[in-house]
């Protein structure tokens, strides 16, 4: 009988790395999403072009290729990254590109009358965005952001291929040491699923919280 408790500790360590990656990647993705999403709505052509190029590039190639690029090619041009940094960078930039489109769509979904009201109240472009448009748009973004976060969680498994000791990596270690495949892989599948459920539950409760007091205001 294999001593499973030790191996389970190994998998838990992997789970911590996965959670860490998901959190840090999400923060970077959120920042990139707002930067690029706002960039696409900018008045200035240069900003729009930059944002579009970023979004198309990162949505156009797969996360796997981007990760390998960050880990193997960037050092050649002088950016030495640890596996964790490369992982967070690739995950954040990739998911950020998808989320940027969500930001753009949500901001555009806010009705014209809100923009007009901002002008009527003599709010500047930035003030109107900050106090009127974004708070409403954020609620529209939330559910899709939840999906994006789950996509990011799933994408973290790819970092195991650049030797970062996340869940998938640890499962491979356990497989190599015990020769058993069923137990480690089933365990991590369940852990990933629980993490995904946690994210969707968290986003739903955040959504409920933020929608409080808005009944009847939103159409």
């Amino acid at each position, binding site marked *: 009988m294999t001593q499973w408790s030790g191996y389970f500790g190994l998998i838990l360590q992997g789970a911590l790395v996965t959670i860490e990656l998901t959190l840090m990647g999400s923060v970077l993705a959120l920042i990139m999403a707002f930067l690029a999403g706002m960039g696409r709505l900018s008045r200035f052509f240069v900003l729009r072009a930059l944002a579009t190029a970023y979004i*198309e*590039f990162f*949505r*156009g*190639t*797969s996360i*796997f*290729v*981007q990760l*390998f*690029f960050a880990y*193997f*090619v960037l050092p*050649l*041009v002088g950016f030495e990254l640890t596996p964790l940094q490369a992982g967070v960078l690739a995950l954040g930039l990739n998911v950020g590109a998808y989320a940027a489109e969500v930001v753009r769509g949500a901001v555009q979904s806010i009705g014209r009358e809100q923009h007009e009201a901002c002008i009527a109240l003599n709010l500047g472009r930035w003030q109107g965005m900050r106090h009127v448009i974004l708070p409403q748009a954020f609620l529209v973004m939330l559910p899709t952001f939840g999906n994006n976060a*789950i996509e990011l*969680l*799933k*994408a*973290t*498994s*790819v970092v*195991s*291929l650049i030797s970062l000791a996340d*869940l*998938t990596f640890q*499962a*491979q270690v356990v*497989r190599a040491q015990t020769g058993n*495949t*069923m137990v480690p*892989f*089933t365990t*991590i*599948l369940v852990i*990933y*699923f629980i993490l*995904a*459920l946690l994210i969707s539950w968290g986003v739903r409760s955040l959504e409920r919280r933020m929608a409080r007091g808005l009944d009847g205001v939103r159409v």
Partner: protein
Amino acid sequence: MDWDWDFVRQILPTLIQGVKITILATLLGSVLAAIVGLGIALARRSPNKAVSRSVGWVAEFIRGTPLLVQLYFIFYVLPDIGILLPPLVAGVIGLGLHYGTYTAEVYRAGIDNVPRGQWEAAKACNLSARQTWSHIIIPQAIPPMIPALANYFIAMFKETPLLSAITVLELMNQAKSVANTYYRYLEPITLVGAFFLAISLISVVLLRWLERRYGKIER
């Protein structure tokens, strides 16, 4: 490290070998995903609560866990219970199952979008369930689904590099092996990225066309 065109010319034939496998896996995976998705969508509409609930949960589980781990599961765990699959077959099954759970949602939305009146009219014309589906519902439900389905097939195409983790010799794996042989990462990985970017930029154009052609729902 500088870009070396001679090296590019030298490795190109090997990469093209990989491209063929990548495209093959995408096509087979798409067909499987289309079929699996239809199966899931129909099962979820089943009047039998046990069937619809359990299929719903399984689909939810597959959608909430990483494709990479599912591939490992198919490739490493199934042989233990006597199912030994060649890498490419395992990869195609993984892609098909994973994206089948996504296409199932597309089918569901497409079927739900057929107006109620069509169902009632079919009933009024005394069509059987089978006739209703094949002559009334499916022909109206399919065209609006096409852009969304194509979107997922493109997403699947971008995920094919993951198959390299279960030793399928597709583009990414060929690039990695070339890189490891000559210890030059810059050209192979960049070429892979450029290839995926090129295909996905082309597919964006194709997708726009599909949306114009089929995306409108006639009411």
